[in-house]
């Protein structure tokens, strides 16, 4: 598969939109979806009714919801992508296929949820792949949340490579410092010190409170089209140079994996880099699906930003924070901006590439990598560039 540039630059991001991110939206997820979609259409300079492609999320807003509430005239392409938190970035791959094949002209990718004020994300029983195995062999032992499962991976890495809590803390602090420069972040006004990080209450050790992503309400939307159509857009367009998805061995269970740290991103990365004709050293920043602190380190390793085992050292000393050697999640990410299922990462990459980020704008930003992670390690990587 290497060297397959077929879908290089098949997708242009022409519009992005977000609602306010909050702990209590006071609106339905569909209302949040409508608000974010209209904002994205306004940003793109198109009539929302020109949207004819939609990329629904497995447990979210449906195509029918959006057709009815946005008065879409017709939808000709609407595959559901079932990759959990990797679905947003993987969606760019499906958009590339559809746009290149002429199946749709303007594709709406959106996420909207009441992850805080609705049924609590952390309280619901986890669902997804491998349910029968989980019901028989995991739930009866009191294991049921993503954080508990990913803590198992974190512990393994700490043992094998000497990764420390202070290095996990460096990830949390970097995200918080980015959020402190982003007025849209839930944690905009809340600083975090290493002392606070280290003494926070344990959740699922090695994870403590600040290793875990936020639960939040809000919506984000992105409008995608062909590079040709993008020339008429209101803003400078951002192109998807390469994009790929991947799935780990024993995809429905952490048991049965010969290589316990291999994830979908491990195999997706080389394909996405080859498609883009770019590599990790060409990136000015990365937006990494930071569901938990260690998963940020793990994805930096598996995407190729550093060798496996060296991610802990890679994130030390503010290296991924504001002004650092390699900024990661300049919006604050899931850990400190909001948990919008990783679509907020695509929005931020687009805004950085357009130079619209105000106080947190990167001095140089020509290319940004965006990762997705979901369902026990399904992964995706996209390379966005100007």
């Amino acid at each position, binding site marked *: 598969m290497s060297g397959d540039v077929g879908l290089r630059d098949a997708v242009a991001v022409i519009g992005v939109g977000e609602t306010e991110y909050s702990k209590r939206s006071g609106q339905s997820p569909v209302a949040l979806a409508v608000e974010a979609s209209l904002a994205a259409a306004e940003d793109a300079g198109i009539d929302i009714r020109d949207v004819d492609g939609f990329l629904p999320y497995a447990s979210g807003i449906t195509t029918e919801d959006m057709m009815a509430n946005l008065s879409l005239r017709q939808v000709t392409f609407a595959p559901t992508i079932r990759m959990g938190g990797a679905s947003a970035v993987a969606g760019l791959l499906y958009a590339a296929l559809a746009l290149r094949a002429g199946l749709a002209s303007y594709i709406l990718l959106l996420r909207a949820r009441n992850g805080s004020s609705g049924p609590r994300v952390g309280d619901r029983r986890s669902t997804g792949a491998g349910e*029968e195995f989980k019901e*028989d062999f995991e739930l*009866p*032992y009191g*294991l049921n949340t993503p954080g508990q499962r990913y803590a198992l991976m974190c512990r393994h890495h700490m*043992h094998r490579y000497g990764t420390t809590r202070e290095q996990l803390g460096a990830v949390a602090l970097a995200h918080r410092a980015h959020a402190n420069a982003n007025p849209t972040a839930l944690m905009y006004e809340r600083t975090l010190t290493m002392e606070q990080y280290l003494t926070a209450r344990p959740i699922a*050790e090695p994870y403590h409170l600040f290793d875990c992503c936020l639960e939040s309400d809000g919506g984000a939307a992105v409008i995608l089209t062909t590079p040709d159509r993008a020339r008429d857009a209101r803003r400078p367009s951002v192109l998807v140079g390469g994009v790929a998805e991947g799935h780990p061995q024993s995809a429905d269970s952490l048991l049965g994996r010969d290589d316990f740290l291999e994830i979908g991103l491990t195999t997706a990365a080389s394909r996405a880099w080859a498609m883009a004709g770019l590599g990790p050293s060409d990136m000015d920043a990365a937006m990494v699906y930071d569901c938990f602190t260690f998963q940020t380190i793990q994805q930096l390793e598996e995407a190729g930003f550093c060798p496996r085992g060296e991610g802990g050292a890679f994130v030390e000393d503010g290296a991924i924070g504001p002004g650092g050697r390699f900024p990661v999640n300049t919006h604050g990410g899931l850990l400190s901006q909001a948990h919008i299922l990783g679509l907020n990462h695509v929005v931020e990459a687009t805004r950085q590439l357009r130079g619209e980020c105000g106080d947190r704008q990167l001095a140089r930003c020509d290319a940004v990598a965006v990762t997705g992670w979901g369902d026990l390690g399904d992964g995706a990587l996209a390379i966005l560039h100007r």
Partner: protein
Amino acid sequence: MTTTERPRPAGYDDHRPFWDGAAAGRLVVQRCTQCGAVRWPPRILCGACLSPEVEWVEATPTGSLFTWTVIHHTTLAGFKDDPPYAVGLVEVTVAGGLVRMLGGIRGCAPSELQVGMALRAQFEVVDDGALVNWVLVGDDERQET
């Protein structure tokens, strides 16, 4: 089941031999009768040779701690009085290979757990199935084995 009860194994048919074994104090996993590869979790086909021919073979009910988490915040009402409790993956050697199994880790304070600790399976019959937790092998026990 009411929400304050502990979740019990649902007892899917594909896993039935495991329950029958555990209820009799035997730890069993799948092995391909074509190529001899052992596997866990249970699968329809052998991952190595795709054969559907499978037998359930008994493993020595001991293993070593591979990784674990100590759960302080549970979202399962039936476990609300348990934290902190440890759940981990245990490497078990079976003729034909090695598998990783998941269960509660007992027998010492969660803060004292270490990778590689020797563990022994502890069987507990519940409803139609059985739970298999893992307890630390004591020093005296280890000398015997």
